[in-house]
Structures are given as structure tokens and as C-alpha cells.
């Protein structure tokens, strides 16, 4: 099990030596739990860092935010930035590097293995604890330990872990500068794509019934997109309102923005948005599950992305986040890609 002091020491050390200009990590949230992302810039802040089963945020997003932040402040990066990364965070970082969003040497990855465990799903915890509100969560082997008003409560990890973590194929951050914790790649708490497989047993009519209900609820807050490290575009194609403003953006370009969909949160527009996003994430989504977690109206967005991921894997032998150098899924092909659907 990872000792939090190791993470703090590593971060402190890097900052003290000036090897990184900041470290992106987690600290305790204002209510104790869940943890929240933090960017620390001074060695003494290292003691704020935490590592617990509520560190679910994909910190790769904050690398993107950092780049945007620098661009906005018209600053150049200078020293690399440090980041604490779980398996999925590290995969996301790989995709971002594959897409040249930043260079390998710009990032110092402090990998943390989820080992045999993972992140909790808050709703599962709430269900199990019957209303008791925990103020902290900690890894405890095969269990999680929760601090509640009534004292510590332990729950088996498998019962309260997020689905994405149960199905996780590689809980170890392969790409890293330093890695903490044991590599338990291949552990299978649940079969990969298990939820997807269950869903796919439904008929066409049932699938539509399901999805239309889900999409109908979407309020188009775009949190799913905001939280996604891969949705780093200056202007999302489905945004009919955003304006990518760079010195080069001409009046012409602004006048000719395509309105693929409208801003109205109605079913058709919501669906088009989500289909677009699923397609755009094919071969890029690393299944960190953040979109699904943040959706305020509980739309099971992971299913969509999982579907694309499994297609990529099974039909095209493609694994997102596997290599920095390889070609992107939709920019490449193999001679024997399936074509039986074509008449």
C-alpha cells in the first residue's frame, strides 16, 4: 500500500530542487471528503497532499487547464510540471502527448498505483452507510475505511467501488517518471466492459427507450465535456456559441460558425451532442469515468465511450493511451478493418 508520506516527500523534493514548477495532486476537500484537485507550488504545501479513495478526478485535465492558464497569462512554462497520476490519469496523459498537447519532458509523472483497489462511488457508499455521512475515506486493503460520526466504518471495496474501477484493466500508471505502489495490472475485479455487455443484451427498442430517457434529462451543462481531458478544443464543434478567439479568428470565421446543434436542451440536440462526443472520444477516451461521475443528472455516459473503446479494441486492435508515438485511431486504418457492413 502506498504510504502518503512517500507521495508528499516526492512532491516536496521535486519542488525543493526546482525540478518542477508545481505539482498537481489532491488535497482534502472543504468537507473532508471528497478530495479535491490542487496545484501546489511550494515544498511546504506538500503536506496538504492526500491519497485516498476519493481522489477520483482525472488530474490530466488540470494539465490541460495549466496549459490554458499559461497561454492566457502569456507565460511560458519553464520547468516541467509535476503531476500525481493514477492508471487512468496516466493513460490520459499519454493520449494528450500522442496529440502533441505537450511534450513528455514537460511533465513529471508521479505515478500512483490503485493496486487492488480504486475509487469509490459516492452513491454506493451512501447506500451502504444508510445515510451516515462520512467525513473521510481511506484505503484499507480490500476494504475502505470511512470516518463517520458514529466512528470508523469499513466496507468491502468491491461493494462501493466505482464501476469504472471495478472494470479497470490497468490500474497501474505505465507511463511515469517515478511510480509508487504495486503493479497489479491484469487484476480483474469485474470483467472488462461488463456493464456494457449487460446493456447490450437489450433489444433495439429497449436501448432506444433507455437512451431517450437518459438524454431527455441532460441539461447541457457540458460538465461531461469540461471534465474531460480530451475535450481540450478551443471551440467544441457542437458549440454554436463559443468563439475561438485567437488573433487569427476572423469576422468571417465567427460569422460562419456551423450550428450543428442548437443550445436548447432538447432530446435531439442532446443526442447529437453526445453522439458527437462519443465519436470524438473513440480511441482517445481512457475510461477514467469522470464524465459519468460529474453528470449532475446521472447519465451513464461511460456506456457510450466504452462502446467505442471496445469497438476500437476488438475490431481495430487499438488501445487508447497505450503509446505516445502511435497513430490515432481514426487517422489510421488497417487493410483488414471490418467492412462487412458495407454493401
Amino acid at each position: 500500500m502506498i504510504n502518503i508520506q512517500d507521495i508528499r516527500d516526492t512532491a516536496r523534493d521535486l519542488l525543493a530542487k526546482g525540478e518542477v514548477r508545481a505539482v498537481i495532486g489532491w488535497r482534502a476537500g472543504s468537507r473532508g471528503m471528497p478530495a479535491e484537485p490542487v496545484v501546489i507550488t511550494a515544498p511546504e504545501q506538500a503536506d496538504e497532499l492526500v491519497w485516498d479513495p476519493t481522489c477520483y478526478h482525472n488530474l490530466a485535465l488540470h494539465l490541460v487547464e495549466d496549459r490554458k492558464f499559461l497561454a492566457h497569462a502569456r507565460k511560458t512554462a519553464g520547468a516541467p510540471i509535476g503531476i500525481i497520476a493514477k492508471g487512468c490519469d496516466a493513460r490520459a496523459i499519454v493520449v494528450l502527448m500522442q496529440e502533441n498537447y505537450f511534450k513528455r519532458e514537460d511533465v513529471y509523472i508521479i505515478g500512483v498505483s490503485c493496486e487492488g483497489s480504486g475509487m469509490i462511488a459516492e452513491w454506493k457508499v451512501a447506500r451502504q452507510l444508510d445515510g451516515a455521512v462520512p467525513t473521510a475515506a481511506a484505503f484499507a486493503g480490500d476494504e475502505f475505511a470511512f470516518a463517520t460520526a458514529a466512528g470508523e466504518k469499513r466496507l468491502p471495496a468491491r461493494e462501493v467501488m466505482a464501476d469504472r474501477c471495478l472494470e479497470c484493466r490497468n490500474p497501474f500508471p505505465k507511463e511515469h517518471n517515478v511510480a509508487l505502489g504495486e503493479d497489479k495490472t491484469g487484476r480483474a475485479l469485474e470483467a472488462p466492459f461488463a456493464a456494457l455487455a449487460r446493456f447490450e443484451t437489450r433489444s433495439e427498442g429497449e436501448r432506444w427507450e433507455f437512451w431517450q430517457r437518459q438524454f431527455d434529462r441532460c441539461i447541457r451543462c457540458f460538465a461531461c465535456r469540461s471534465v474531460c481531458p480530451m475535450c481540450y478544443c478551443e471551440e467544441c464543434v457542437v458549440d454554436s456559441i463559443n468563439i475561438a478567439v485567437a488573433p487569427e479568428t476572423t469576422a468571417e470565421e465567427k460569422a460562419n460558425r456551423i450550428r450543428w446543434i442548437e443550445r436548447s436542451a432538447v432530446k435531439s440536440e442532446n443526442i447529437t451532442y453526445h453522439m458527437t462526443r462519443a465519436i470524438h472520444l473513440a480511441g482517445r477516451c481512457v475510461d477514467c469515468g469522470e464524465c459519468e461521475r460529474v453528470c449532475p443528472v446521472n447519465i451513464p455516459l461511460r456506456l457510450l465511450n466504452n462502446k467505442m473503446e471496445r469497438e476500437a479494441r476488438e475490431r481495430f486492435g487499438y488501445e487508447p493511451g497505450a503509446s505516445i508515438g502511435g497513430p490515432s485511431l481514426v487517422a489510421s486504418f488497417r487493410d483488414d478493418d471490418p467492412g462487412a457492413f458495407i454493401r
Partner: protein
Amino acid sequence: MTKKRTGVFVCHCGTNIAATVDVSRLAKEMAGEETVAFSRDYVYMCSDPGQNSVIEAIKENNLDSVVVTCCSPNLHEKTFRDNAARAGISGFTCEIANIREQCSWVHKNRDEATAKAIKISRSAVRRVARNQSLEPIAVPVTRRVMVIGGGIAGIQASLDIANAGLEVVLVEKLATIGGHMLQLSETFPTLDCSQCILSPKMVEVSRHPKITLMTYSEVQEVSGAVGNFRVKILQKPTYVDPEACKLCDECTVVCPVVVPNEHDLGLTSRRAIHIPFAQAIPASYTLDEDSCLGLNPIRCGKCKDVCEAGAINYDMLPKTVVEDVGAIVVATGFDLYPQEKILEYGAGNVEDVLDGLQFERLCSASGATKGHVLRPSDQKEPKDVVFIQCVGSRDPAQHCAYCSKICCMYTAKHARLYKHHVPDGRAYVFYIDIRSGGKGYEEFVQRAMEEDETVYLRGRVSKLYRKDGKVRVLGTDTLTGENVEIDADMVVLALAMQPSKGTEEAAKVLKIGRDKDGFLAEAHPKLKPVESVTGGIYLAGCAQGPKDIPETVSQASAAAAKVIGLLSSDTLNHAPTVARVRRSHCTGCEMCVTACPYKAIRLENGKAVVNEVLCEGCGSCSATCLRAAIEVKNVTQLQVFDMIEACLTV
């Protein structure tokens, strides 16, 4: 971009369009479009008065863009774009709405056809509303040409082009140029000796200062585009230095390996080291590494020992040569349809049943029998010879749907040649009908019937099999309705022509389309018969479709003329409808770079940059870019978006 003033010109095409589409309604509907400032219909837009009216309308109404609703853009896009240019506006602000091929000709219901024509036209109007005025991009060209295939087509094209002063690289797969024509004995309709007319041309090729001949070579990879292709050629080792080889033939004498001779279609044999035939160009021996015992002095090495000139070199390696050329002529020829596939005639397993080329070799003075027609099984002179036409051709159910075009003629020739060799023999020809269009062709066939007393039987041979040392041929004479049974000494099948294996390979490497029969597809069946669909790549000879020598030569010369025209100046106009990067949206993810088939995109300072000369405007980049940060000019995503809208507006 300010709002367009578009003119819409609706063509009746006589009644071709007007009979099915309500043209005046179409013109009126288009007038209701936001950007349309002028709209009219006319009986023949492409006629002189029609074209002039377009030009006048542009000038008078101050139009800046044009939509012509007429036939396929393949036919008149250029016409009307030129007109637009003549009227002083960019040709690229002119678009064609195809309401003939895609509408009036394929629908009968007037309401439906009119509704569809409106949608098609509206979508063109919407597209044009956002077309940019573009001017062609001038690209410097490489004034060299590659000809692939050294049959008569390739030879003719090479000579014509070289004589016009352009450098030619002629690539031939085999060890000698000449192609199938080299295998023919005499040629219809004049019965002059094939080699006699071909050999001088071959020699001319080998001596021509502007022609680089690369035999035993294959094209491996082609990149670039019209005006500037880069071709990688693999030169297989012949293991014989052509400069040193004295043609003394000592080596073949000692070579222990005997294999069938392809040049004689297996009627004779050759050694592992051999010369394809005596007058081969280049005049040199070739060691066929597949049949050689091992290219190794320890295993054999006899030829190397005996060669006094020291021309043999077992260590010769394949060579990759890169050539830059501005245009390519593909003349990779034909193969005969394999006899093995003709199950009804014994699938090649019945003795004394030959194909046409084998018969040519039998008749040829340089052939297996030194010009005596002797049947292979017993080397006796055959007295009853049956010729069967249309074997594999015109048989969509089992074989090729098309007519191979030359078989009627060469069968008549074969019958005559046979009669000239065996005056007391009897020649029978089974035919479906006789196609002898061509100068002197019909007369030639008549002579075969009358002078040479060939028996022409109209009908199909249903079966043939070996019986009592003869080949029993069962057929029907459909004119008399009687069954015919002939015990033949020899049967000659006029097998269909099919695109050669090399044609298939070349099409793959060059990425040029093939038609449903596998022959190379021309850009237009009537108006662009020697152009391939890819700019700068031209077609000649049987690779494009069955034809005889005169036609092959004409097409080769036509292709040569096209090439000469193309390369007549130092620059070439490249279509300006190329990709453009919206820098503010590009994140430098490199997906477009990976997707572009032409390697036309690179990253510079984290943004994609398009090399406009290499870009062909395919749009793969645009479809791949998640952010639509790269788009093809005049086919932008917004334009397609508008067109979709138009297609769904009722």
C-alpha cells in the same frame, strides 16, 4: 465574404431534362433563394447561344457566381467554368447541379423528379453561396515521363514521347520488351510478319538517347501527383551483365535445368539461364533465379564457369531506383483467360487443344516447330482443325461478360494461316457471330471463308473430349439446327482477353481505378478514353480494354500526345480546391497529418500547414480533424451542412 449574387441557369437538354423535370418551376424556385439574383431556363445551355447567354447574364446582372443545372459535371463543368472565367469571374464560383444523369434520366414521375431536381439545384446554390473565388495554383513540373509496360503500346508511346524531346523511362516487367506482339506470327488484316514490324521499333527504343530502358523491373511505389510523381522501381537482378554478355549461348548449353519456355507458351523448353528469344531487347541473357539450382558455384556454377566474357555475376542484388517524372503512361497489357477455367472444354487437360497464342507460336517461323503446323501430341500435321470463338468471352454467367473484340479476326487469321501451311487440311470455325468491323477486316474474313474454304459453323461447342487419338468436338449448327460432331486433330480456342496480372498490380501501386472487368478505368468512356481518373496518369493498349494492334498503337500515340501536351510548359495548373487550416482552431494534434494520403500536411509551430501543391483536396483531413480546423476550400463543412439542409427541404 459578402452575400453572393448567383445566376442559375436551368438547361432543358432538349427534352432530356424538360420532359421529366418542370424546368420553369425549377428556375422559379431557384429565384426564391436568398443569394440568387438571376434565374432562367433555356433549351440547350451548352449550345453556343446558351453559353453566350450565361456570359452575358453574368456581365449584365453583375453576377459573381453561377449554378448550371444540367448534365453530369463530368461533361460540362469545364465548359461553364470557362464561361464564367470568360465573363470575368472565377471559374470556381461555378457549380453544376446534375439533374440529368442523377435525375431526369432515372425517374419517370414528373412531380418526384421535379422535387428532386429542386433539391439538387438548391444544394448547388447553397454551396456556391459560400464558394471562394479561386485561381489555379501554378506548379512546376518534371518534364520526364514514365511508361510502364513494354508491349507495342508502351513502345509506341515511349517513342512518340521521346521523339517530342521528353525523357522517357520505360519499365518492363520481363527481361525483354515486345509484349504479346512478339509472340504473334503474322498479323491481320495484312498478314505481315509481326516481328518484322516490331523488331525495328524495339531496336529504336534501345538506341534512343531520350529513353532509359529498365527491363526485369517493377514499379513499387508512387507518390506525388500530376507534374511531380516520384516512382520507386525495383530492378530484379538478371545475374548477367548486359554490357559484357556476348550472346554466345555457351551458358545455356551447360545449364542442367530445363523448364518450359514462356515465350513459346510451354510448347518448347529453355534453361535456367536463357535469352527470352533471339532478338530480345535488351540483347542479353537472364538467369531465372527461381529455376536456377542455387546461384552458387558450389551447387552448380556451370554457366559462370563457361562464360568467357565474365558476364555472369551471382552476387547481383535487386536495385531500387527512384525516378521523378511528371506523367505516367500505363501500358501493362493483357493475359489470355486461363484455359483451366474453361471446364466445358477440358480445363486445359485435353491434349491438342491449344489456345490462340500457342497456335501463333506454332505458325511462327521462330516458334517451336519452326513454322510447321504440327500437333503437339505426336508432331503430325493435323488435317482437321476446329477453331472455337468466344471462349470465355460474352459469357456473363460463367466467364467474362464482354466481347474480347479481336478473336473473330485472329481466328479467321488462324484458319487462313493453317490453310496456307496445310493446304489439304480442313478448318472449321464455331462462332456466335462475326464481328469484323475495321478497315479491310470484313474482306479478310470473307477471304478466309471463300479463298481458304474455312467452314464457318454458327453455334456453340457443347463438349469436347479425347477419343481415339482425336479430339471429338460436339456442337450444334444453329443455322441448320443440326448437331455437328467433328473428330479433330487439333482444336484452337480463341480465349478471352483479360487484364494482365501486371495490370492489376500496376493499378494497385498507382491507385488508379479499374472497371468491373478489371481493365483500367478511363476518366470518361468517350471524352477521356486515354486518361485515367488520376491526373497525369494515362492509359494505353490492352490494359484499358481488348483491342488489336492498330487500335493499341493509336491509343498509345494518343496517350503520348496527351503527355506531350501536359508537359509542354514548365508549370502546371493545380486545382486550388485544397485544404486550408483554421489556425485558431488547430491544436496541432497531428491526426490530419497521419490521415493525409498525400503527406501534404506537416506541423509548424504546433499548427498544421498544408502543402498546396501536394494536396489533392480529398478531404480526409477535414473528416478526421475533430475540430474541423482543416477544410477543403469550396467543400467546407459549412457548405456540406447547407447542402444537407437543402436536400431535406421540401
